[in-house]
Structures are given as structure tokens and as C-alpha cells.
């Protein structure tokens, strides 16, 4: 139920019937229309987390890199200590 999928915004417009800000979001080749009213500052090119047709978060590139670097380092450290994983 709380499933969220990250995808990249490729286009932004305002929907005529509802007057809501909308975006086309690309999920690895599959495109979907997503409402931006909860992330109104999102721009084309941004990665957003999409849940039930709404963007609910803009993914923080820097945070993502830092976490991955930290976790990758964990392995290097273990190797230096001569441990096998």
C-alpha cells in the first residue's frame, strides 16, 4: 500500500479539467502521468518518488551517493582487515 517507485520527470503541464500541476514520469522506459501538487517545485530531469499517482518526494542525489559510498566502503574496510564476506 505504501509502495513508492522512483522515476524521472520528462515533462510538466497543468491539467485542463482539474487545474492541477501534472508531470510525465519515466520509470525505466514506462511513462505515467503523475500529479505534482505535493511536490510543486519539482523540475524536468528530477527524480521523484511516486505513490498512487502523486509525486511525494524529490530524491536527494547527494544523500543517495553518500549512503552508497559509505556502504561500499564498509566492504573495502573488511577486506583491509583480511576478512572474507
Amino acid at each position, binding site marked *: 500500500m*505504501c509502495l513508492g517507485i522512483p522515476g524521472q520527470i520528462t515533462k510538466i503541464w497543468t491539467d485542463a479539467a482539474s487545474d492541477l500541476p501534472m508531470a510525465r514520469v519515466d520509470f525505466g522506459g514506462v511513462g505515467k502521468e503523475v500529479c505534482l501538487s505535493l*511536490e510543486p517545485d519539482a523540475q524536468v530531469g528530477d527524480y521523484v*518518488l511516486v505513490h*498512487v499517482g502523486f509525486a*511525494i*518526494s524529490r530524491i536527494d542525489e547527494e544523500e543517495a551517493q553518500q549512503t552508497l559510498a559509505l556502504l561500499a566502503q*564498509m566492504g573495502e574496510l573488511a577486506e583491509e582487515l583480511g576478512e572474507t564476506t
Partner: protein
Amino acid sequence: MKYLDEYRDAPVVRNVLAEIKRTVTRPWTLMEVCGGQTHSIIRHGLDQLLPEQIELVHGPGCPVCVTPLELIDKALVLAARPDVIFTSYGDMLRVPGTFVYAKTGTQANDLFSVKSQGGDVRIVYSPLDALKIARENPYKTVVFFAVGFETTAPANGMAVQQAAREGLDNFCVLVSHVTVPPAITAIMEAPETRVNGFLAAGHVCTIMGVGEYRPLAEKYRIPIVVTGFEPLDLAYGILNVVKQLEAGAYEVENAYARTAPNQGNLAAQKVINEVFEACDRAWRGIGVIPQSGYRLREKYVKFDAERRFPDVGAMQSIESDICRSGEVLQGLLKPDQCPAFGKQCTPLTPLGATMVSSEGACAAYYKYGRIQD
């Protein structure tokens, strides 16, 4: 896909698991609150890769599973009405209720059965789809089943605000929202609780932030770590909880900051606060948890399906006494320890919602073959 694949990288996951093994010295019981995390853990066999001192128990974080039987029955009654188009997220359609379909006299105990017997039940991906159906069908009442945790509440709330803005008076919502912090309180207050630390639900925190977990960590002296859904996210969350437990710490940490900022999504919180207010809510299998739900504020009460159809609002239901999903949802019983699991209770003949929900712990154990001989 970016932001998914790199968090499924087996060698890095193995590194983190090795770090967990190096860290742990004593037995600990961790609870992942979110049903999505439960499925990810069982699917990837993460629980079996952890050191044996660490036990993962599964929490009540599946809104489909905890929606009270009464609300399922109300949904069935509404869906069977000829003047109603009933709209719902797909995962509610096979949740068993107790209602008998009056038209034919045959048993119709879930929304799929009602649909197969002529009820106009439509699966929607987004609440905005339900609004579109309401615009296109002005002579029918469109009821949307507004189920979910804090993650889903802003989207459902937005739909109500939008209906008010557009004057869509033929739209209303059957609300069954629940919130996580009161559930953690209920679990920690239970005398038989074994939980030493929590993996907090990453997408709930994406909306709400981490602030409301600090008093809980403080009061119960438990580490709470905001955790994502991919194997690497889960391993990293578990590592952080274990590190804290070994050090005697009980902080709120965020191991999912790329998606869940500490303050949450302020625009989404604003929608929740404008549309909903806290109320006591019965959780299926668990009972009433004080102030653990959302209901519509008075300002939006004309969109409340239970008010619009008063006969439905007054319904009460009685739960089966065979299903032990309440204990499963509180982490007191593993699905495969239930005598009915895989026998009277399977995805085709479910006794409880935990066996049919895509996030239900019983469904995860069944799907991934965790069946004891």
C-alpha cells in the same frame, strides 16, 4: 532502474550483512513495521541471511490487513447498491468480509464477488481516477475507499479537496486511515512485547518526517531507524538498529534520507491537517487503538460516505475466531505458526486479510514457500 538497481547489489548487501555479524553479540528482536518491508525481507531471504541472534518480527503496517471487518462490510454494501460506482485500490478487492449479497442470496464476501454479481466496482490507481469517474458519471454516486497509512492520506485528502473545489457532490469517501506512531505505542505497551528496536516505515516518514518518533524512542528506550525497501536499505537499517542496541543507545536515525527528509513533506502534511483529524480506530485483529486513525474534518463531512449513507454508517460485524492474524500483526505469532496457515487458510480461501494483501505477512510466507511440513 536508477535508485533501485544499486540498492539490490548483492556484494554490497553481503558487506553490510558481514558488518551486522561483526557487530552483534547478543540476541535482539527487531520489528519492521511496514508490510512492504516484510515482503522484501521474505522475498530476498534477508531474515535467513542474518546472524541467528537477530530475529525479525513483522508489524501491523499493512493498511489492507488492519482495515476493520466492519469497514470491509460497509464497502461491500455500498458496492452492491445500483446507484453507486465503488472505486478502490486493487489490493482491497479480495479482502474477506461477511456480507451476503441480497440480490441473489449467494455469498459475496469480497469486492470481487460483488463485482462479479453486477456491482459496479472499479479498480483505480490513483484517487484522481475516482474523481474523473465522478465527473463522467454525474447521475451516480462515486464512493472511493480511502484506505492507507500517512503515505496515502495526502493523495486521498487531495482528492477530497479537489472534489470540494470542483463542486463534485456525487463524490464521497469511505475513510479507513490509520497512523503508525500509535501502533508502535500499542505494541510497546503490550505486556508480552519482545521488540527491542524498530525499522520505521520509509514512505510514511517521507510524508511525516521523523519528529513524532523521538518521544517514542525516548519513552520506551528503543532505537527507531527510518528504513527503505530494497535489500541494501533493509540491511543498512538493521545494522543501524543493532549498532544502537549493542551500544545501549535509543535514538531516531534516518537510513533512508535520500527519499525521506527529516522534516517530511510539508505540503503533504498541510493537506492531511486540513482534511483529516485524529480519531480512535479499530485495527482488524488487534482492536481499538486510541487516536490511531484519521477521519474527515467537519468542513469536509459532506464527502463522508458513512454520513451520506446512514444505514451503512450504523453497521457492525463479528470477526471469525479461527483467524489469528491479530497476533501475526502484533509480531506475537509468525504466519507459519498459525494452525490454519496453508490448510484452511490459503490465498484462494483466505480467512483473514493478511493472507490476501500484497503486503500481508501470511501472504508473503505462503508466496515464498515458508510452509512448515
